[in-house]
């Protein structure tokens, strides 16, 4: 059993390694363009809502706390606590997606969604428009893939919750809770980096 727990944990870490490289590729491309077009990227900050971003960060951090507490409860055999913390984790995860939804809607209303009515007014510096469009592509790709991973995470949580309700877990078997926790924390970490990179650029500079 211990060997299976160790194997499952190692397996999840190897999987997270692949996820780091998956997002890493996108971070890499983003960083290259940010280096090439620093002013255009900085100017997009006026279209971002860092308050939403910060709220989302806080929400995800709380969800990580409740997730860690859920794993702890599973380890101690505290069934009710486990289920409660899983529910909270899911609520916070859902809250994140709702806030994200608001944001996307705002972008849509402001006509900042590439292709779907995206329009950037940089009459004095037209090349900034093209570069800002690239930035927004990255914004939507990166937060989009992140949100997709959140949805998968919610699916995982639901499955774990149902298993917990059936009494599947005990101090000698809580592997699925542990590895789902690892996945959830990883998704949190991705956002911890997305927040400053996408929302907090050039907050101090007003360029256009």
């Amino acid at each position, binding site marked *: 059993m211990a060997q299976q727990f160790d194997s499952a944990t190692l397996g999840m870490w190897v999987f997270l390694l692949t996820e780091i*490289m*998956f*997002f890493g*590729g996108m971070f890499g491309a983003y960083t290259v*363009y940010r280096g090439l077009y620093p002013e255009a990227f900085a100017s997009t900050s006026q279209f971002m809502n860092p308050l939403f971003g910060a709220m989302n960060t806080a929400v995800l951090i709380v969800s990580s706390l409740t997730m860690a507490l859920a794993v702890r409860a599973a380890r101690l055999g505290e069934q009710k606590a486990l289920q409660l913390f899983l529910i909270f984790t899911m609520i916070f995860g859902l809250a994140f997606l709702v806030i994200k939804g608001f944001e996307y809607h705002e972008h849509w209303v402001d006509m900042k969604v590439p292709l779907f009515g995206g329009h950037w007014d940089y009459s004095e510096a037209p090349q900034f428009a093209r570069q800002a469009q690239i930035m927004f592509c990255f914004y939507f790709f990166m937060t989009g893939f992140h949100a997709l991973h959140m949805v998968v995470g919610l699916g995982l949580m639901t499955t774990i919750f149902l298993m917990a309700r059936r009494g599947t877990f005990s101090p000698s078997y809580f592997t699925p809770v542990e590895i789902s926790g690892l996945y959830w924390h990883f998704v949190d970490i991705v956002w911890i980096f997305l927040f400053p990179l996408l929302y907090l650029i050039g907050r101090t500079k007003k360029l256009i």
Partner: protein
Amino acid sequence: MSTVLQDPRAVEAPNYLNQEYGWKSWLFTKDHKRIAVLYIISITVMFFIGGIFASLIRLELLTPQGDLVNSDTYNKFFTMHGIVMVFFFLIPSIPATLGNFFVPMMIGAKDLAFPRINLLSWYIYIAGAIFALAAIVLGGVDTGWTFYTPFSSTYSNTFVITAAVGVFIAGFSSILTGLNFIVTVHKMRAPGMTWGRLPLFVWANYATSLIQVLGTPVVAITLALVGLERAFHIGIFDPAIGGDPILFQHMFWFYSHPAVYIMILPGMGVISEIITCFSRKAIFGYPFVAGSSLGIAIIGFLVWGHHMFVTGMSMYASLYFSLLSFLVAVPSAIMVFNWTATMFRGSISFDTPMLYVFGFIGLFTIGGLTGLFLATLGVDVHVTDTYFVVAHFHYVMVGGMVLAYLGGMHFWWPKITGRLYPEGWAKFACLLVFAGFNLTFFPQFILGYLGQPRRYHAYAPEFQVLNVMSTAGATILGLGYVIPLIYFLWSMKYGPKAGDNPWRAKGLEWETTSPPPTYNFEKTPIVTEEAYAYHSEKETHVG
């Protein structure tokens, strides 16, 4: 054991093949050996599909004019040949077949760490293959297997997204296989099977798995970005709006160069297994061979720019990548030296697997050395995008990898099926493969040096003789591939029974019946001797 006396063939020990029958027992199996067989069938099919495209290419190139097909169609031929061969044959080949079958057995385990994920990886592979075949059937892709932007992201009128989705999906199959192997080797070794006693085939697959896990996700995101750009016309690779096509190449080759080490490392592992058995000698320099496997895996991530010397990358980056490309040749060379030293003063027999090993060592060396030519900036400017490159990579991938695969299949066929293949035909086919291969690809070195560009359906008339030689070689090579297909299938019904260890090889996999039982070992083996303990034969006549 059964006591009922019937047809002698029916009194067969229960093994993984005859334990259960019916399609459900195969399609829902969790047994790594059955999954390996499923993979063998699938990749063989894909290999021959890729081979059909190769034949069409060589057919067109019989004449200098582009008279068989027009250039658009020809572009589709070499693209589909590349996509199918790279992503659906070479990448999965040894790990998913011989690796799946033998890594657990070699470490004394009952199965891989995650048997259901193993089966899932096969289904994912099939799903990816379906998309790739769909792309072919719908009309093909013409971007080259390298999907360079902005042609693939904006201008091509072919089924790029379909093909990219197929490759994306197949990538997950590769990742899951790698993940499984890594955890298995760390957590499931039998008592006494220390890292220092692992067969080198396991080391090779472990190193390969590291590459699969670290590199494949990057090509996944790269192709996803190309697909998104193509679908939504917004772009990060489109120069018209400030994108950089070179960035695509950086991202693509970050995976695709290590990918070639995914292809060759398991082959090197096979060579270590065969060469020790047929020299009756332990491997020379075990730590160096194991270490070189890891070294190739790691340094392989630092060299990808050598595919981009003439694309517009900076000169300084080119110098960096050129230097490191020279460095990555060192561990490969160490391996070749160690294999050679293994044979020295060994007792060599010339069975078919060993013939493939000889072929591998020679052809891989040529392929590897010509890689150094290409790593040299000055030379590369002259021969890049010519047939010199085509010859180089076919020498390592076919002369190296495919020969290792065939050698491994012959070596382990008795264990996998319990039958012996016909040795006479096998030797003949091996010679056909070797002769046909060299006739196909050696002229291409010359053609490339003389200036024939790759990916062109027509060429200057003075190159015709060498091209005809190449096509003739391809025909012989094709025959060399078909013959084993026939006799392997034949042997499954009519081949003589192999017995547990027809080669008298060392290794835990040989200590089971042929074919092995479903659970591999009746009792977990306890390992007390080093790998390749062939020296002990002289004292104890182990057989």
